[in-house]
C-alpha cells in the first residue's frame, strides 16, 4: 500500500492542477487543437448540447480529455457513442499520446 500511496497522491495532485489550469474562467484561451476538435465534434454530431475539449498535457498537445453531450446519442450504446467520437477525431488521435472520452445522451 505504501508503494501505491505515493504515485497515487502525486498523480491526483498533478491531475487536479492540470485540469484546473485548463478550466480557469476568462483567463484561459483555448489552444488551436482544442478549438479544432471542438469544431469537428460540434459539426459531426447531431444536437450537441455540450462539447468540452481539454488539453491536459499543459499545452504540449499530447493528452486530451473530451466530453460530449448530444441529443444525437439518444438510444445509442456507449460503445457506439465513443466510436462516433473516435471516428470524427481519427486524424487528431494519430498525433496524441492519450485521450479519454466521456459521452452522454442529452
Amino acid at each position: 500500500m505504501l508503494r501505491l500511496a505515493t504515485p497515487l497522491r502525486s498523480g491526483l495532485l498533478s491531475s487536479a492542477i492540470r485540469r484546473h489550469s485548463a478550466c480557469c474562467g476568462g483567463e484561459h484561451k483555448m489552444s488551436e487543437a482544442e478549438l479544432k476538435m471542438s469544431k469537428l465534434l460540434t459539426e459531426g454530431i447531431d444536437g450537441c448540447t455540450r462539447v468540452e475539449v481539454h488539453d491536459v498535457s499543459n499545452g504540449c498537445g499530447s493528452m486530451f480529455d473530451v466530453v460530449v453531450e448530444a441529443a444525437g446519442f439518444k438510444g445509442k450504446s456507449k460503445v457506439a457513442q465513443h466510436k462516433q467520437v473516435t471516428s470524427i477525431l481519427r486524424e487528431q488521435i494519430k498525433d496524441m499520446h492519450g485521450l479519454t472520452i466521456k459521452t452522454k445522451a442529452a
Partner: protein
Amino acid sequence: MLRVLSRQAFSMVRAANFSASASSAGGGGLSDEVRKRIDGIVKKDDVVVFMKGTQQEPACGFSRNVKLVLDFHNVKFQDYNVLTDQELREGVKIFSEWPTIPQVYVKGEFVGGCDILISMHKDGEISDFLDEKGISNKYGKQ
C-alpha cells in the same frame, strides 16, 4: 483515487494502440478464418473478456479493472489472454472496430473496454444492462 490513475494510464495505452490498429486495418483487415474464430469465441460463452493476462493474474491495470468490476457484480466470465495469442490481440481490434484491450462481450455483442465498463458501473446502469441480457448479477432482479 484509482480511477484517476487508471484513467490517465489508460489514455496512453488507448492512443498508442489506436495508431497500431489503424495501420494494421489498412493492411487489408481481418481474414475470414480469424473473423470466424473470434465470432465463435464471443458466442460460446455469455460473457467473454479479451484481456492482457488471465482473470486469475491480470497483466495490466485496465484488464484488472475490468475483472474487478465483473467480480464485484458476481458476473462469471470466460477470459482470453491476448498476450499469448498475437492473432487474437490484433484481430479483436478489427473485429470490434475498437482500438484497445481489454474488450468485453456479452451474448456475442461487444460492450466496451475498461473506461466504458467503469462508467456503466459508476452510473449504476450495469445491473440493468446485465438483467436485460439475462446475465445473473449481484444487484440484478433475477
